[in-house]
């Protein structure tokens, strides 16, 4: 029943648009009318050695796209379609694909390997293709099979391993796959193309090797083969073998001890003498070891359990040889590496690794690096000065403040002068080093800072001059100003040291944002983001007039973006980016000025104009702007309070649009937050909009398309609305409680081993409690009886959460609070409920013992509420 479709496939690639469109239409029609036959025809085409390579290529791509998609919902649909196809047709397709692995055409083999892996990802977990692994292994064990088939088979095995979990196979199969792959790397037996395919397949199969890595003999064998392959004469094979070593470093860190000597020599030779592609992997090996050890150290410091994974201190042991090796790489900079983001070279990888080593070992790195810094910092060759500065900047994180402080104090003057170095790279790295110093060694609230009232003028003088340097340097200077200001975040009056310079800083940042020599918009957005931090961290008592003046300047700029000529989609994107930056600044100004009673009137006076501007920005319809303007509107609603009602008429449709934006879930999420802000601002006046808003929120909850992270925000938002509209929430209660009960059931089923899911579960629990709290409080004074039928379920859910030992503190607090709200709102009606669920006594007891003051206080309040009910 396969059809001849070669011509369609070729026409679909025709340069003639009419021909192309007609062919595409025909293919689509065929696909829609008879999917099984269509897929079979495609696999026949792919398998057929006499067909043109162009039609075979497209057949393979269409086939693959019929089985897999990036979008989860679409993918699920495709999987269902495949499973519905008659088993005999599926068998024919699979046979054709397996046969294609032996094709003379490399590309057909490659495509076929990919398609097989996609089918395997559907069928193997369901045990519907049990013969696949045996069939592939058969290709490998028979001596007389052609090298091309073996190469394609190994590639297939690699892809299959990437697609499925090792739990989908029995251990015998896993062993056989690993044996086949590792043997494929054997120099004596196989051609280079087979060995390359084997090394790449091993990279994907490493996750399958857990049992085998436990066994010393098998582990030794695998490691021996990988190390031998790492010195193959073909560079691609060496690179693939090193990629395996990088993966082993993180996956099997605790098994590496016996091999470290050999691995150090292997990587060290590669760094010193191999091709860059290989030496980059060799450095990445050490960076990965650092990642592991840093994580172990963080884990160690927070947990004191006895089953910690071992910390082998590889970095510490190798330190004296590792650091000189990395310092050497720093001298191998490329010209222009600072201007091009796509470059990744030895000196960059080495410098990055040096920074990780510093974080791993702390103080011990300082004496190994400082001599290099001192020896090179004054040399005439710019590479030496840049490398010395970079090395210094790299060790600023890790060592103790005590160790670093004298060095930084002594070096600060030098660095400030080096901002006038003749070489752009040196200035770039110097500016970066300054930003690191301000990030890591400038915390006035903590009593630590390299910045004092004596030197701040000099420092800012240099920064504000150097911000006019080339774009790459100016961007780093923005970072330095950003961190310098961040040190004063929430520092109260301490931040007034910035006040005398504020006008200059703001002027220079705006001028920098206006520069046209940046090439892309990176410098501009850095300048605006730095401006945000400057506003946030300034001391409001003396700077509010300055910030007040900044507002119309930024609003004016935002107004100008609306006049821009938009011809291409590129223009639109640029306009959108600029609007995003400017909306961001306005949001930060709103938030800053609305934070005190004295300055809030400034925002109230300007709110009509601000809102009019935002509405015009919305009308431009670029999604990133939508998001930033939405974020700003939340702050504006908070600042305006009841006055925001004036804007709802025009704003409402954008609110609806935001709530329906499933694809850009951040937009949806922020909009949900804005609904909360508006509910609090408008109070019962929000009622007139609630039917629409609730409809969208409930839709969002029911959607599989919407990213799950939005859903907790929606529940919290229900609480906000209920609190605002009180008894009028009654008409939504049935739907809302149903959704909350469903979500509560979901919480119980989450995989406790998946940390990310657990975090999500905690958010969901907390938000469900917040919603109940808002609803109970909203009904309390008018119709508490509405919630009576749900009280028992709620209390039961609280008990389940109480019994969960992994419960988060914030969940505990929300749970204990809602228990009090229940007693408070429903009063004596809950007496029997509480009596039947004595867990609450234990729960309150636990909370009253908590170290967290706010949990204790909440529990005390709840205790009072329940106590009142119990004696009633």
């Amino acid at each position, binding site marked *: 029943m396969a059809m001849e479709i070669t011509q369609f496939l070729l026409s679909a690639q025709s340069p003639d648009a009419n021909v192309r469109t007609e062919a595409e239409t025909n293919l689509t029609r065929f696909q829609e009318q008879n999917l099984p036959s269509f897929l079979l025809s495609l696999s026949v085409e792919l398998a057929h050695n006499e067909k043109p390579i162009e039609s075979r290529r497209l057949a393979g791509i269409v086939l693959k796209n019929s089985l897999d998609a990036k979008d989860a919902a679409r993918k699920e649909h495709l999987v269902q379609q495949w499973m519905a196809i008659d088993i005999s047709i599926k068998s024919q397709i699979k046979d054709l694909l397996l046969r294609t692995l032996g094709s003379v055409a490399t590309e057909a083999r490659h495509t076929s390997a990919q398609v097989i892996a996609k089918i395997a990802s559907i069928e193997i977990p369901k045990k519907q293709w049990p013969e696949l692994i045996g069939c592939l292994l058969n290709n490998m064990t028979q001596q007389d099979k052609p090298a091309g088939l073996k190469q394609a088979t190994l590639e297939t095995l690699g892809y299959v391993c990437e697609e499925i979990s090792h739990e989908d196979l029995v251990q015998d199969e896993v062993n056989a796959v690993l044996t086949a792959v590792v043997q494929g790397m054997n120099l004596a037996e196989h051609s280079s193309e087979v060995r390359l395919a084997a090394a790449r397949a091993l990279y994907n199969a490493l996750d399958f090797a857990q049992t085998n890595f436990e066994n010393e003999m098998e582990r030794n064998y695998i490691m021996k083969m990988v190390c031998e392959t790492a010195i193959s004469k073909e560079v691609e094979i060496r690179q693939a073998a090193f990629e395996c070593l990088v993966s082993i470093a993180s996956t099997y860190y605790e098994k590496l001890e016996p091999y470290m000597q050999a691995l150090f020599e292997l990587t060290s030779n590669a760094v010193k003498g191999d091709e860059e592609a290989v030496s980059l992997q060799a450095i990445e090996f050490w960076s990965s070891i650092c990642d592991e050890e840093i994580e172990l150290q963080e884990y160690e410091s927070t947990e004191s359990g006895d089953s910690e994974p071992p910390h082998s201190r590889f970095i510490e042991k190798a330190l004296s040889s590792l650091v000189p090796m990395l310092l050497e790489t720093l001298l191998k900079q490329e010209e222009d590496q600072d201007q091009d983001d796509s470059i990744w070279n030895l000196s960059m990888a080495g410098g990055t690794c040096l920074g990780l080593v510093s974080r791993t070992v702390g103080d011990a790195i300082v004496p190994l690096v400082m001599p290099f810094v001192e020896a090179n910092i004054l040399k005439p060759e710019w590479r030496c000065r840049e490398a010395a500065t970079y090395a210094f900047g790299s060790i600023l994180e890790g060592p103790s403040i005590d160790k670093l402080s004298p060095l930084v104090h002594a070096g600060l003057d030098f660095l400030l002068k080096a901002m006038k170095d003749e070489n752009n790279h040196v200035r770039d790295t110097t500016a970066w080093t300054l930003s690191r110093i301000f990030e890591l060694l400038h915390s006035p609230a903590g009593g630590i800072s390299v910045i004092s009232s004596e030197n701040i003028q000099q420092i800012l003088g240099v920064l504000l001059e150097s911000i006019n340097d080339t774009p790459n340097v100016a961007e780093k200077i923005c970072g330095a100003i950003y961190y310098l200001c961040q040190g004063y975040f929430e520092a109260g009056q301490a931040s007034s040291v910035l006040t005398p310079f504020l006008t200059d800083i703001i002027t220079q940042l705006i001028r920098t944002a206006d520069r046209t020599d940046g090439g892309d918009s990176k410098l501009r957005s850095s300048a605006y983001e730095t401006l945000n931090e400057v506003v946030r961290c300034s001391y409001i008592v003396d700077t509010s007039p300055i910030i007040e003046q900044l507002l119309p300047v930024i609003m004016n700029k935002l107004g100008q973006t609306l006049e821009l000529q938009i011809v291409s989609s590129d223009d639109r994107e640029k306009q959108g980016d600029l609007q995003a930056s400017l909306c961001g600044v306005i949001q930060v100004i709103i938030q800053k000025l609305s934070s005190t009673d004295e300055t809030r009137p400034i925002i109230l006076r300007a709110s009509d104009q601000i809102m009019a501007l935002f509405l015009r920005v919305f009308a431009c319809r670029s999604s990133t702007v939508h998001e930033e303007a939405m*974020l700003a509107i939340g702050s504006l609603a908070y600042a305006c309070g009841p006055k925001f009602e004036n804007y709802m008429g025009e704003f409402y449709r954008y609110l609806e649009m935001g709530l329906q934006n499933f694809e850009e879930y951040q937009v949806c999420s922020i909009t949900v937050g804005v609904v909360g802000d508006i509910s609090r601002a408008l109070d019962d006046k929000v009622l007139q909009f609630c039917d629409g808003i609730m409809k969208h929120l409930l839709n969002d909850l029911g959607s599989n398309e919407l990213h799950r992270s939005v859903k907790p925000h929606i529940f919290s938002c229900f609480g906000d609305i209920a609190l605002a509209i009180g008894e009028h929430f009654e008409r939504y209660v049935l739907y809302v409680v149903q959704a909350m009960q469903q979500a509560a059931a979901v919480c119980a089923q989450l995989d406790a081993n998946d940390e990310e899911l657990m975090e999500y579960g905690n958010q969901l629990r907390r938000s469900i409690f917040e919603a109940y709290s808002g609803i109970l409080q909203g009904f309390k004074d008018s119709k508490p009886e509405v919630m009576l039928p749900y009280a028992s379920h709620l209390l039961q859910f609280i008990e389940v959460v109480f019994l969960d030992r992994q419960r988060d503190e914030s969940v505990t607090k929300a749970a204990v609070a809602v228990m009090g709200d229940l007693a408070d709102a429903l009063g004596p009606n809950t007496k029997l409920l509480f009596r039947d669920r004595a867990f609450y006594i234990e729960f309150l007891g636990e909370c009253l013992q908590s170290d967290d003051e706010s949990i204790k206080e909440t529990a005390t309040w709840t205790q009072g509420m329940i106590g*009142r009910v119990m004696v009633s």
Partner: protein
Amino acid sequence: MAPHDLRRPFKRPAISDQQRRRELSLQRQAQNRLDAQHHARRLASTLLFLQPPQSDPEADPEPDPEIAPEAEPEQVTSPSELDVREASKLKGAQARKWFARQLMLPEWMIDVPDQLAQDWYVFARPSGKRCFVVSTNGTTVSRLRNGSMLHRFPSALPNGARTRDASGSAQSYTILDCIFHEADQTYYVIDMVCWRGYSLHDCAAEFRFFWLNSKLVETGAFDPPSQYHRYRFSLVPVYNCDQSGLSAAYTEPVPYVKDGLLFYNKHAHYQTGNTPLALVWKDENCSQYVIDTDSKGQVPSQQQVVLELQDNGNLTTSDEPHVVFGCLDGDFMQKSGLCCGNLLRFAISNGGLSFLDGKLEKADLHYLGKSNRARAFADSYSKVMFQYMARHSPLKVDDLLASINSSIEQENKPSDDQEMVG
């Protein structure tokens, strides 16, 4: 196989201000939500405090605002029926009236309650101005019972001064029920109404006192005055009202001038307005002001009472339901220009008060005139009675002790009190 990208961030300040903006917005929203929910959890008898303090000539405290418990909701457009949100919009005199009703006011002890030893606390009441102390948003304000402001000052109470206080929202309230003692410029805390946004209205006195004792000490409010803590706060010793407790409260020296004894029922919530679950009692040994003085500070020869004129001419106390002390005829009302709602001052003449079956039957009243304009309420029945007894057959401390003794003898059954405070 996807190419293994090993590029790491290089020389790039890790600024993602957009993420930061989102996070800060979320933080702000979470805080606002918390504040809103806290308010709803009925802290907010205090929302009124949001009003900027205003000076108002009517606000002068009465000559002795302490002696007479007189708060009782008015009948005309009573602000007491407003909910807290509406109340927050009140201004000036209206606001003060509303505020005045937020204090719990003891009745006067005219007979000894049963179970005094089991169910009651006793403590010596400091002489001075009864007030609410509210700390929030970096400042502390004390308000007298008539709502007028006594002090605005920085204190070590939660959010009571503009210092960095990491815990909790700056908007959360703490409200203490205090007596300001002039001589040592100290606020003696006698009750706690709200702590860091948590209302204790609905908690039993037993718990409130426990909480008061354990919480306040942590704040440093008991420290001597300093730049950020202008007045010292202090606790009063509270005793179980058994024989030794009562004796201690009555006789033990305290750093303040005593003005009678206060009795609090352990199970009573903080109920605003007059309550029989808090009682005040005085004699000459523990108070300078047993018998009311007039506006010149002299004890009048005859007891004076303030009563409210009803539309039917009845003269009533502030209690709910009213107790009727007498009646004016319409003629007299017209001649004197009196109308319903007026507060009138009378002397109790030689005929005194007569009782039938424990109920007031008639009072020999002599009209003196309208009462002081600043007064908002008539006298309560218990006050009139206490004053009357003080002049004729006072309730003595020995009577209280005897009552405790006799109840101990009867008391053999186990207590069935609910233990709700750990």
